[in-house]
Each structure stands twice: as structure tokens, then as C-alpha cells.
């Protein structure tokens, strides 16, 4: 029951803030950048995806989704009106954060597809590229959702700190990049790998990061 209540609360808060306006604006920016990079091969898609969309647009959009739902507050503040009446705080938080993470995954999948679709001329290989981009984008978005869930333990400031950490540490390819989504997302979508891992390793790490960040966050604080 608490899981469903948490999920519904986050969904209603998010929907009430009209997130599609923000996601549509980001999609327009990505499409415009993709259009300027348009080529016959994959190089244009790589530049659109790895040059701007993944490093800048995706973290900002995911943060905006959390911002629309939580504002400057911690996740617990959104859920206290239900927790006070007997719902379990940890399960409520898990439901709410799963909803926000799903929103991040969907938005990132959409942005990745638009980046690749707008930067690549029509061909038989494009469908396969779009499919891979959608799945890779969804995993990257889920990992960013998990990371922002951790940051939300400290409200808006916490989210900004974890995004700064992702930007500085995740941009590398050594061991410091392992706990951050950026390097693994870059690897999965065709860029430099972290610890010379394969794309399968990157996909596994993104899924693990999303799951572990979410479970860590939901287990914090009193029930």
C-alpha cells in the first residue's frame, strides 16, 4: 500500500507540474543539434549523443524532473503528509523514487532516440541504432534517477552536488568513474569505456547503480 501511495504521490506532483513542456523543449534542442550534425554514417549521431545530449541535456532534464516533483525539499518532505498517518516512510520513498526514476528513464530514452534519429540519414541500420539508443538511454536515465535520489536526501543542494561529482569524476575512464553514471552511459552509447569494460559491462553497471542508489536512499531514515 505504501509503495503505491508513494508512486501515486510522485506521479501526481510531477504531472501537475507539466513536465512534458520541459522535456519537449529539451527534445527540440537535441533535435536541432542533431540536425546540424546530420551525416550518412554514425559519426554525426555519436557527436549529437556524446557531445551534448548525454553530458549536458540528460543530467539537466533528469534534475528538472526531480525539481518539479520535490522543489528544494528533501524527498521525505513530500511524503510526510502520508507518513504521519501511518504509511511506512521507507516504502513511500521507494515508490516515489521509482516513479521519478522511471520518468528519467523514459525522458532519456526519448532524447537519445531523437539525437540519433535527427543526426542520421534514413537507412536500414537506423532502426537498429534507434533501438539500441532507446535501451541505452533508458538505462542511463534510470542510473541518473538513482543518483539524483541519493542527492535528494539533502534536497536541491544535494542533487547539485551529486551532478557535479558525476561531471568531474564520471568524465574519466579510471576507477574514480565507476560509481557514476556518466562514464558507463558514454561507454554503452559508443564512447570511451570505463576500466576498458565492454558495453555489456556498462549496461550491467548502469542497472546496478540505479538499483543500489535507490535501495540505499529508500533505506535511510526512520520508517
Amino acid at each position, binding site marked *: 500500500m505504501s509503495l503505491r*501511495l508513494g508512486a501515486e*504521490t510522485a506521479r501526481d506532483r510531477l504531472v501537475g507540474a507539466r513536465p512534458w513542456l520541459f522535456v519537449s523543449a529539451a527534445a527540440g534542442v537535441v533535435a536541432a543539434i542533431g540536425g546540424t550534425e546530420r551525416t550518412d554514417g554514425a559519426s554525426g549521431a555519436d557527436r549529437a549523443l556524446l557531445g551534448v545530449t548525454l553530458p549536458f541535456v540528460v543530467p539537466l532534464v533528469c534534475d528538472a524532473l526531480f525539481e518539479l516533483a520535490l522543489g528544494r525539499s528533501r524527498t521525505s518532505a513530500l511524503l*510526510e*503528509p502520508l507518513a*504521519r498517518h*501511518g504509511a511506512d516512510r521507507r516504502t513511500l520513498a521507494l515508490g516515489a523514487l521509482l516513479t521519478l526514476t522511471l520518468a528519467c528513464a523514459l525522458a532519456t530514452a526519448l532524447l537519445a532516440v531523437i539525437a540519433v534519429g535527427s543526426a542520421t540519414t534514413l537507412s536500414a541500420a537506423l532502426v537498429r541504432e534507434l533501438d539500441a539508443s532507446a535501451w541505452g538511454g533508458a538505462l542511463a536515465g534510470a542510473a541518473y534517477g538513482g543518483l539524483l535520489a541519493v542527492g535528494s536526501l539533502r534536497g536541491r543542494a544535494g542533487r547539485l552536488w551529486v551532478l557535479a561529482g558525476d561531471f568531474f569524476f564520471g568524465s574519466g575512464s579510471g576507477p574514480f568513474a565507476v560509481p557514476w553514471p556518466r562514464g558507463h552511459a558514454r561507454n554503452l552509447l559508443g564512447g570511451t569505456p570505463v576500466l576498458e569494460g565492454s558495453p555489456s559491462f556498462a549496461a550491467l553497471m548502469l542497472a546496478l547503480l540505479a538499483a543500489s542508489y535507490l535501495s540505499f536512499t529508500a533505506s535511510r531514515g*526512520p*520508517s
Partner: protein
Amino acid sequence: MSRLELSGVSDGALRLAAGRFDPACTVVSGDDASALAALAAVMSGVAPARGQALLDGKPLSAWPPARRRVASVLAREALPPAESVGRAVTRVLAARGDERRANDVLEPFGLGAWSSKRSVALDHDELRSVALALALTHAAADLFVLYEPASSSLDRVLVRERIAAAVTRGAVVVLVSANTAVAESFGGPHAAVVGGVLQTSVVAA
């Protein structure tokens, strides 16, 4: 017979609250609204900065089943985010394990018309009225913590009847009010928050 205990509680303007509340209608008054508001919140299950509130030995802030037995109105009320007041009230009912519908709570107090209103359209006083309706219709509550129960727009006679009924069936009822005259009109044992410290020596257990 239920019992509320405060153990070394402090939170913001509430410097220290310790003591025991037995089944009766106890009035807590004081001149520091912030301290009274913090006291009501802690008694309702909001986690204090220090100490804990225990209902029958279970910590309210960390034990959800204990919080389901609490009916409360805080100084600053908020409904959970939802598209309508009715939907928000239904969620509160679900959180406390109550299967009734929103109108079962709102209509007895003449608030049925608010059910379809948008939650964000309610002002502070209206939110408190909805919260008081939710609290006074909590059939399974063993603890009632009501901040300024006389200041809502609900029918005062009906509010008094519901509070009296809760006391009669053995619940712990704590009325928190900065208005001493109104608080005393409810009768019963009396406690006070003086200088941010809860003085329970006047509570007749």
C-alpha cells in the same frame, strides 16, 4: 488503556518535553506558538530532533502501525499531492488503513462540496478543517492530538461531541492551544509549555 510518553524530546522552539499522558482530555497551553506547534507535531509522529514520543512503548516516528492509531491536526496542515481534495483524503485514509471513502469523512462535517475542489485551492483554514474532519472520524485512534481544535470552521458542538466520545471510549486526547480560555473550556487536566519546556506537573494522570 493507551498511554503517550515523551522522552527527552526537543525540536526547535520546543526545548524540552518529557512526561506521560494517560486516557483523558488533557489541554496543553502556552504563549509560544512555535513550541506548541512543534509539540503537536512530535506527538503526531513527526520525528523530533532529539528524544522520542512513545505510544504504548512504541516510538511513533519509527513505527508506522503506531502512527495509524493517531488522529492529529497540526499547526501547519498539508494534504498529500493529489488532483482533488477527495483524492488526497482517500490517500490519507489508505495510509491509516481505513477503507472508507473521502465523502464518509467530509460529509458529516458539511465539507462534502470540497471533495471535487483542487487540493491547492484550499487555504490554511480550510486545510485545517479537512484535517480536523479526518482526525475526528478516525474510528480506531487511541491518541488524538489536536492543535487549536476550536479555531476551525467546523460545527463546534459536533467537534466537542466527537472529542467527548473519544474520551469516553478511553482514548488519550491532547488539545494544544495558545488560547488558554478556549483550551480551558474543554476541561480536563492541564499542562503548559513555559519557555519552551513542557510542564506536565499539573497533569492528573
